[in-house]
């Protein structure tokens, strides 16, 4: 190749420049965001994930939930996220420092899940949704995750206190019960942890619309 070296060095320099300019600069700005200590309540926000919820995050990642679900609420005035009650406010960078892998997603074939636990604060709902989506959300095209649950015969015993209360055509049938596996319990614990309710006073002004420039002002 005639200009092989020039080509290689040029492309390398371009990539190095964009790596430094985009990623290093972003890292310097937000790479070390700490938790915020509430001056009155003395709480640290965002609170770290509980152990089981953190395991659930891995299940969420495993199952590819992020293919169809986003976890980012756009600010008021940009899209209908707030109007759809997907959150009380747009998401801040600081909301995500509690998660080891951040899965903000890029497709909304399903609804946004960033604040799903504030909308639906019942673990039972998520178990039903995962086992038989149509039982709680008729018309949904979410795939059923029956493999996260164990169907076992009651054999005259009392049903487990963990048994998912699905019945009728979505249920396992007479004389059987559906019990969540540890993966299902972890995933639901993670979903139940998805709520960004704390409003950071430091970030609040970032949420406000930009002040209108004066007409003809310079």
């Amino acid at each position: 190749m005639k200009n092989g070296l020039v080509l290689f060095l040029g492309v390398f320099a371009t990539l190095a420049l964009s790596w430094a300019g985009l990623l290093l600069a972003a890292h310097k700005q937000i790479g070390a965001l700490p938790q915020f200590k509430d001056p009155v309540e003395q709480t640290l926000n965002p609170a770290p994930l509980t152990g089981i919820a953190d395991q659930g995050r891995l299940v969420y990642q495993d199952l590819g939930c992020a293919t169809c679900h986003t976890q980012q609420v756009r600010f008021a005035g940009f899209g209908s996220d707030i109007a759809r009650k997907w959150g009380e406010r747009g998401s801040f960078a600081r909301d995500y420092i509690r998660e080891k892998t951040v899965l903000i997603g890029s497709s909304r074939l399903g609804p946004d899940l960033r604040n799903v636990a504030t909308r639906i604060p019942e673990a039972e709902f998520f178990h039903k949704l995962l086992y038989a989506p149509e039982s709680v959300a008729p018309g949904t095209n979410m795939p059923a995750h029956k493999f996260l649950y164990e169907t076992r015969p009651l054999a005259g015993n009392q049903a487990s206190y963990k048994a998912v209360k699905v019945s009728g055509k979505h249920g396992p049938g007479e004389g059987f019960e559906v019990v969540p596996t540890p993966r299902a319990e972890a995933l639901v614990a993670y979903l139940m942890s998805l709520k960004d309710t704390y409003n950071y006073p430091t970030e609040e002004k970032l949420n406000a619309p930009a002040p209108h420039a004066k007409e003809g002002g310079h």
Partner: protein
Amino acid sequence: VRGVLQPVVDAWYVHNLYGLWFLPTALAAIYYFLPKLLGKPVRYYYLAPLGFWWFVICTAVAGGSRLIGAPVPVWIPTLGTVANLSLILPVVIIGLNILGTLSGRFGAALNSLTLRFILLAAAGFLLNSLLTLLLSLRGFAEIAQFTLLGNLRDWSALYLAFSTAAFGAAYFFLPRLTGKEWRSAALVKAHFGATVVGSILLLIGLGAGGWQQGHLLGNAELAFGDITKALSGWHTLNSAGLAVLLLGHLAFLVNFIWIACPLNSQGTAGVTIPVPPALSLAKEGHA
């Protein structure tokens, strides 16, 4: 790397993978085959290096445009928007070079199987550039973000530009490398036809479906279940498009196994491979 820096790295990497690997590879095939098979130099040859470097430099910083509205510092998507806007010029240069080289020889291009695939690749490149630009504009992204249009953007780079260019190259090189002819002309035709039909189905399904999805999502009065129902027709159309593409790939596979199988020495003798027309570069003053 913690927090939302991960999506930033992801956007940078993914955008560069598409914009600096798949698209330029497709472009390389376009720039190679168009002059070679048409026997005509690239129309605005002196602009090509400018177009290339401008394209590479701006694409490398355009990744942030995938994060409009995301919880990242606003300068990241804004830089992406600026870079994508300045990409208009190199894309125009590349488009002029493709169309300029084609002009007057369009009939000849359609007669060559390789060039038919290359034309699809060129269409894919231009479509992808347009979609990337549109999706990095805030007003458009507000509607089209997170919809099937995002899938269309990535699909048009990966399949419509890169894969069709690779298929075109395969149809050119494999007979020359093996000294054999394609076994079945019908399968070759079936592959190209399936590529065109499948691509059109996906263009309609992902494009119109994504546009409708964006408008439905923007209407907060509408329950999410209704959006899912409204989209199911588009999903069927997209699956049909992918199935048609799969049929084309199977046709290619059969032909490929035939030509690549070392046990098959049939047809080695007496094959006439058309020699591409000679390039007349001298009057352009470059070689």
